[in-house]
């Protein structure tokens, strides 16, 4: 599995408008819904489920990144997008540091194995200091796209 198999470049946000955790989750769910991953009538339910999930335990695993995610019946296909905040968002992260890069992953309800594989891909790259640094600096959607494609290439070799 490659990042480009499930990352929706068009839904990526080089500068998030929202300034708080729930707002960011809503903004990114809306962006993925706009690409057809979630139907309009399920948008609110998916966002709420993702926020509820986050309340059960922060996905801010440290180092300025958070990976909010949810499996939901209203998600038509697995998809992810990236939101960047230059000011930083309070995600109640494990290291208490602000989050500058948010990766939202939405998965259908009935395929836990694919969800786990996607999380593995995401964390594999987020662990790389360079990948995190470049993501934090990615000021345009084009830069985000290049980072994803480069990450996939490195993975191939």
């Amino acid at each position: 599995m490659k990042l480009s198999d499930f990352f929706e470049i068009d839904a990526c946000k080089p500068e998030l408008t929202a300034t708080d955790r729930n707002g960011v989750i809503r903004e990114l769910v809306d962006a993925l819904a706009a690409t057809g991953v979630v139907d309009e009538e399920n948008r609110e339910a998916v966002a709420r489920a993702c926020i509820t999930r986050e309340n059960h335990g922060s996905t801010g695993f440290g180092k300025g990144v958070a990976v909010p995610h949810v499996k939901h019946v209203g998600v038509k296909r697995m998809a992810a997008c990236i939101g960047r905040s230059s000011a930083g968002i309070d995600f109640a992260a494990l290291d208490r540091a602000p989050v500058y890069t948010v990766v939202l992953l939405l998965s259908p309800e009935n395929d836990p194995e694919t969800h786990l594989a996607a999380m593995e891909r995401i964390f594999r790259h987020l662990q790389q200091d360079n990948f995190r640094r470049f993501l934090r600096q990615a000021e345009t959607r084009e830069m985000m796209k290049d980072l994803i494609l480069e990450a996939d290439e490195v993975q191939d070799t």
Partner: protein
Amino acid sequence: MTEPGTNNCATAEVTIVNSHGLHARPVMRFVDLASRYEAEIRVDKGDGTEQVDGKSPMHMMLLAAPKGTTLRILTRGADAEVALKALAELVASGFSDDEPS
């Protein structure tokens, strides 16, 4: 037989039983528990693939282990055996993950 000491080692294999596998919440439960012990804690899938740090959520997510996967937990340190027992019980109990929350 072994005297308590910093080089105590213990190993156990335990199967993941909860339906969603080792996803983020079970990982956090595992890391929370592992972090209470002094012992070094390593985890792998016993298949020659990489071994990860059981106290790092980002590392543990790399296991991407679905239901039915056998995890191998390796502990080393003064409290290696108690740590191993607690962690193996957590995995075998399904992390309380399939219970309605």
